């Protein structure tokens, strides 16, 4: 689907963040996640926050005077693979792919959206998805045995 409007772009982002939040929350409750449960739970919370930011942006930063048709942005390129009954070892890979797709989407959308304040928000979320991906990659080594990786943003 072509994302031709401000609302379509943010709507797609909200949908993806909401779905990611659910997946992370489910994974955190899955006993097979072992030591990664806390990491997934933290990611679910982060994604919920993103949903809130994006919804607020959609409410507050849409001003009719600056609506401009958006072009050359389709959602297919950024849609993660549909969830399936994955093997334990595949869950983390799937999450990493998801973060990678989200990161690419936010970078491209920030360039297309045409509203500086919204572009800043999308860039910010892009940065957080990149960080999240790194944390997930760190989690690969101890998968099933060690504790969660540490979010680079955290002090």
């Amino acid at each position, binding site marked *: *689907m*072509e*994302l*031709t*409007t*401000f*609302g*379509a772009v943010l*709507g797609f982002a909200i949908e993806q963040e909401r779905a990611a939040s659910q997946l992370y929350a489910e994974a955190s409750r899955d006993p097979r996640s072992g030591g990664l449960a806390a990491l997934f739970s933290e990611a679910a919370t982060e994604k919920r926050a993103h949903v809130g930011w994006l919804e607020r942006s*959609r*409410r*507050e930063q*849409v*001003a*009719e*005077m*600056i*609506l*401009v*048709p958006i*072009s050359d942005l389709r959602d297919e390129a950024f849609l993660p693979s549909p969830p399936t009954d994955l093997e334990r070892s595949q869950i983390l890979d799937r999450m990493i792919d998801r973060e990678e797709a989200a990161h690419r989407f936010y970078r491209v959308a920030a360039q297309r959206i*045409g509203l500086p304040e919204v572009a800043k928000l999308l860039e910010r979320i892009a940065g957080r998805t990149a960080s999240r991906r790194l944390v997930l990659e760190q989690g690969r080594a101890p998968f099933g045995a060690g504790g969660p990786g540490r979010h680079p943003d955290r002090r």
Partner: protein
Amino acid sequence: MTVETLRNYVGGRWVDSASLNHLEVTNPATGEVLARVPLSTREEVDSAVRAARAAYPEWRATAPLTRARYFFRLKDLLEERFEDIARTLVREEGKTLDEARGEVRRAIECVEATTGIPSLMMGTCLEDAAKDIDTVAVRQPIGVFAMLAPFNFPAMVPMWFLPFAVACGNTFIIKPSEQVPLCQMKILEAMDEVGFPPGVVNLVHGARDVAEALIEHPGVNGISFVGRSAVARQIYRRAAEFGKRVQALGGAKNFLVVMPDADLGRTVPALITSCFGCAGERCLSGSVILAVGETYDPLQRRVVDAASRLRVGDPLDETVQMGPVISRRHTERVLRYIDQGLQEGAKLLLDGRGVIPAGSSNGYFIGATIFAEVRPEMTIAREEIFGPVIGIIPVRDLEEALGIIRANEYGNTACIFTESGRSAAEFVYRAECSMLGINVGIAAPMAFFPFGGIKGSLFGDLKATGRAAIEFFTDTKVVISRWR
């Protein structure tokens, strides 16, 4: 499925109208009947005015800060219901979801602006205005105000008036447009939940009869109106006859001047948004592009290319960029203008007639329509079309563009696109319109600035929103004292 019959809101209660006459509210994208709106009786108007009058003494004596707190709570409720109101707006009016969200945002901004009423209402004073004489000027509310709303911005336009009037201490009656009453009802539901005292805000459904009853009623002190200029002129005259304050915002014919030095990469999207946003049904919509000098050819090519790519369809589809116009009758009116443009010799570069989006065969759609080789004396260059139909006129220079703007009977908005500060300054100084855009296609003042035009676009002297609204909804009482 049963279609809901809408109720009036009088004296803090939702009440059924006794009227036997109703109109249908339809979704302009699908033709679906959404509700039945009663054409309320004169007795029901009288009942609303009595409720408003009864509530006035206590409300005007309520501290401005207390009145402001109602609006803080209203803002919170409207934020919570933002998406619901926006989607209702899409269904009844036909604008896109983005446009509807933008409109609801603007409505909330009016509420936000009025939370500052303790400061906004402050008067002035001067010690020793004369020998041993002190003078104080205070702003006082006046009584009961009524608002007659248009169809094109059913959430926002009433909020140009209602919160300002009520925050000033007046009580209020709104008559929503009979074509689009639904989202205004949602806003009144929120006001009811906030707990405004009974009678402070009231809503009476209806059409011309209700408008006339409000204008003629001795219990109403002032009228605010937004709509076509012919009606605005009539309402201004009629309300004045009955001794009322009146502000009647009329129609527009808005010119967009593109100078040869304009950055077309930024200008063309702004023009498209201006001309075809809300299907051209805005009093700030660009209607005629005045292309200066050599910009005419490249500009028309790029505008046609961009407009032809606009996605027209059911505006509940988030990817749609332009929805339908309001009604079948309005469609026919807009189509007549297209015919007239052709008859008068304009060249049709993009024809929006016969656009029927998939699955929307019952909708009132007209695609973006662009005429070139338009001359200023043509009907399509002079009259308000209020649809997605524009003309492009080649002009020699800024002087000629300003002359065309000056000659037009309306004076709402005009915009210039240029990289030259000198051209922009000249334009600001000389363009005879009240809302000007520089490299902005829709020059919409925010809630803390006045909204309204000049010439045939405004009947009255005080505009909507901002300090002008405070002036309209209050009397300035001057007290001259000698105590020393």
